[in-house]
């Protein structure tokens, strides 16, 4: 009986020790900061910050290669959250990278579309449905409003339509009252 208990305890200790050691030895270094920054960014993948997407921009911020005020779709609100996460001062959006606009989705004027598929290639989130010489259309729920499809269109048939607030898209507003610092 005692022997059995000792054997099981022994196996437990050995297995536990090996696992504990290998957890330290084989630790995978992911960068949790990049993921946290990426979670704040709006995921429009629009490239207005000068990086090819939100994740590369997040990586650049984490490395200290980019400033936090280069994301117009995120707006002032996004900059404020980034400043809070990184413990740096809030700064207004850099106008070089564009102005914040109301959240909108792209709409294709289907009478004008010639089916050239150029916008399909530009879309970073595959929100445009269509094939060569077929009319294209945009899946509104997938569109991030990045405007990357506007410039490739040879017939200018895509425009941005702001999302109107209705019962399905309404959200609680963030509280606007700022805490006054104690004198």
């Amino acid at each position, binding site marked *: 009986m005692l022997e*059995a208990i000792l054997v099981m305890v022994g196996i437990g200790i050995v*297995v536990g020790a090996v696992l504990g050691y290998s957890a330290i030895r*084989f630790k995978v270094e992911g960068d949790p900061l990049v993921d946290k920054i990426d979670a704040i960014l709006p995921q429009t993948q629009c490239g207005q910050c000068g990086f090819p997407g939100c994740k590369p921009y997040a990586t650049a911020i984490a490395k200290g290669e980019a400033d936090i005020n280069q994301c117009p779709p995120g707006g002032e609100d996004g900059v404020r959250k980034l400043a809070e996460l990184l413990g740096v001062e809030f700064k207004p959006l850099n106008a070089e990278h564009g102005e914040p606009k109301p959240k909108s989705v792209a709409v294709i004027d289907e009478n004008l579309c010639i089916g050239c598929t150029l916008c399909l290639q530009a879309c970073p989130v595959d929100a445009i449905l269509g094939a060569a010489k077929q009319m294209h259309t945009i899946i509104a729920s997938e569109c991030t409003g990045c405007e990357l499809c506007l410039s490739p269109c040879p017939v200018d048939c895509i425009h941005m339509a702001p999302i109107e607030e209705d019962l399905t898209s309404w959200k609680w507003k963030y509280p606007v009252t700022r805490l006054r610092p104690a004198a």
Partner: protein
Amino acid sequence: MEYILILLGTVFVNNIVLAKILGLCPFMGVSKKLETAISMGLATTFVLTLGSGASYLISEYLLGPELFYLRTLSFIVVIAGIVQFTEMVVQKTSPVLYQVLGIYLPLITTNCAVLGIPLLNVQARHNFVESLFFGMGGAMGFTLAMVLFAGIREKLEGADIPKPFQGVSIAMVTAGLMSLAFMGFAGLINLK
């Protein structure tokens, strides 16, 4: 020659899933797509080979004939440990392989074939190398059954199945028929 016989015997004649009816939950659960079936098979092969070897060492040198009743308990502890260890090593050394095997690695701990084969090893009084081959063969048989079954299930997706048979029921019928087919190998190779 003997080892090749063990391999052939466990893969075809005594197929762990289709003849011994062990490890049915991953067989039914992760066989909807061919890729996941292959990944699951690979992960199982890896763990089962290691697990058979480790279990042999434990039952032979640690437990002996007096503590035989601890086999099930100690095997499952060691196998769970091996699975965890494998997961950590694979994640560190080969992120690609980790992505392929991914969530299937921890799932293997609950696969009864993984516990069944070491116990069968002990019953059949295999030595160390035989245990390894038996484990690997069993896992390869598992992989074979998974891949065949997943292939059939992918075909079934597009087939015109009568309504009462759709979904799990036709999968069960298919598994039964496959099992029948594998029973045809019975007696082809006689393991001691």
